[in-house]
């Protein structure tokens, strides 16, 4: 058994891993942006007055939350072409990750919206505001501070799930470390660096989320 850390090798592979980390950031960022938008649409649709679409959507989101992300990635990438939807690994991966996390964010938004007191809706009605204005000008701005901690958790979660994209060949951090390992038969340095890079990305994110929440609350006068 050997445990010999090679600093020269570490420095040699670092640039390659950092380039891959940039891809990880892009995949997580785009996936998260998609999840935020889809999640909001789903959260609002779950509160719509039409029962049938609401039920279908609720069951659909439950299905997404109850099945592994990696299965969904495989499904979109490999089964998609059979029904005529051929996507590059990047696009398939970000759709899968965005859709998966939108199902969780929809719940976070829903809880945030429900935390806004009913009196706020009644004030909107008494001022004769439209449903749209009531949501976007009154209720959602107040729901956001409630939703931010949960949103932050899933932002860190989406980072940590990007390695799953390596299964369809997206060259993110994990994929790069795997290639280095199979080219050089050295695994200690690449995988350790992967861990360190993830830690370096996740820790500040959590801190920034907390800061953002405080800023938002004071900006909204809450």
């Amino acid at each position, binding site marked *: 058994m050997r445990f010999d850390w090679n600093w020269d090798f570490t420095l040699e592979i670092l640039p390659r891993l950092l380039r891959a980390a940039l891809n990880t950031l892009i995949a997580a960022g785009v996936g998260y942006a998609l999840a935020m938008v889809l999640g909001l649409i789903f959260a609002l649709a779950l509160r719509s007055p039409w029962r049938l679409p609401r039920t279908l959507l609720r069951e659909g989101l439950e299905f997404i939350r109850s099945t592994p992300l990696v299965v969904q990635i495989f499904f979109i990438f490999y089964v998609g072409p059979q029904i005529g939807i051929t996507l590059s690994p990047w696009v398939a991966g970000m759709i899968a990750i965005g859709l998966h996390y939108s199902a969780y964010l929809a719940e976070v938004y829903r809880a945030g919206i429900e935390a806004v*007191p009913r009196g706020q809706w*009644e004030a909107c009605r*008494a*001022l004769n*505001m439209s*449903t749209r204005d009531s949501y976007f000008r009154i209720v959602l701005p*107040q729901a956001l501070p409630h939703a931010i901690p949960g949103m932050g958790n899933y932002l860190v979660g989406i980072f940590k799930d990007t390695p799953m994209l390596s299964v369809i060949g997206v060259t993110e951090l994990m994929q790069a470390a795997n290639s280095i390992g199979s080219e050089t038969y050295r695994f200690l340095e690449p995988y350790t660096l992967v861990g360190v890079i993830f830690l370096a990305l996740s820790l500040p994110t959590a801190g920034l989320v907390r800061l953002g929440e405080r800023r938002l609350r004071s900006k909204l006068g*809450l």
Partner: protein
Amino acid sequence: MDLSAYPLELPESDRPMVRFLNVTKSYGSLVVLDNLNLDIQRGEMVSVIGPSGSGKTTVLRMLMTLETINGGVIYVDGKPLTHMVRGGRLVPADEAHLRRMRASIGMCFQHFNLFPHMTALQNCMEGPVQVLGLSKAEARARAEDLLAMVGMIDKKDQHPSRLSGGQQQRVAIARALAMRPRIMLFDEVTSALDPEVIGEVTEVIRKLVAEHDLTMLMVTHQMGFARDISDRICFFYKGKIEEQAPPEQFFANPQRERTQQFLRAVKDAD
């Protein structure tokens, strides 16, 4: 429900500002209001009093269309509020009809319900800009006038969290008035306030009564205030109007047993 017996519109000669016609409201098997008939005339100030659970707040909430009704029709200025005319008969109102009709009604709440993420001024500008389509400048001028009227102009840039309950309620009154309603509803607007700030809110309402020709409906527990400013007192008991009369007569000479009991109980509590 058979609506054919209800007029599509009230005749010119008999057109109060508000008419509740056989209005029933229930939650499941619990009947909150039982066949309510109540007219409120133009410019009239009516105070609704009664023990809790008597359905008095529900009257206001139905008129603000915060609650649907289970029977009867409510008319505002002669036109149906809870219903609309389709193909020559009354059908339940849709959202577009409610939005048209609601424009003439404003409401203040027990817990103010100001928008916490907006300043006092922004609270008063929101409706005029977003709903009435006023320019920012027009809305600001209107809001500042009203905030001055309620004595809150020097706090106009404060968020509600920085204001006392009495101050918040005065802003809420200005916010409702900024929509230029013809009917104002006050739902226990002093019930959540500390005793020492109740006066500043009742002062504003007194001023409204004296200086504006608004039609007002107020639910209150303050008998003295109701006696001073109302044209008529309506006493609710178990979902019905038990007794109604001008305040002098109502307080000096209540006719019904229930009314006498209620007034005695209130006096003892003071």
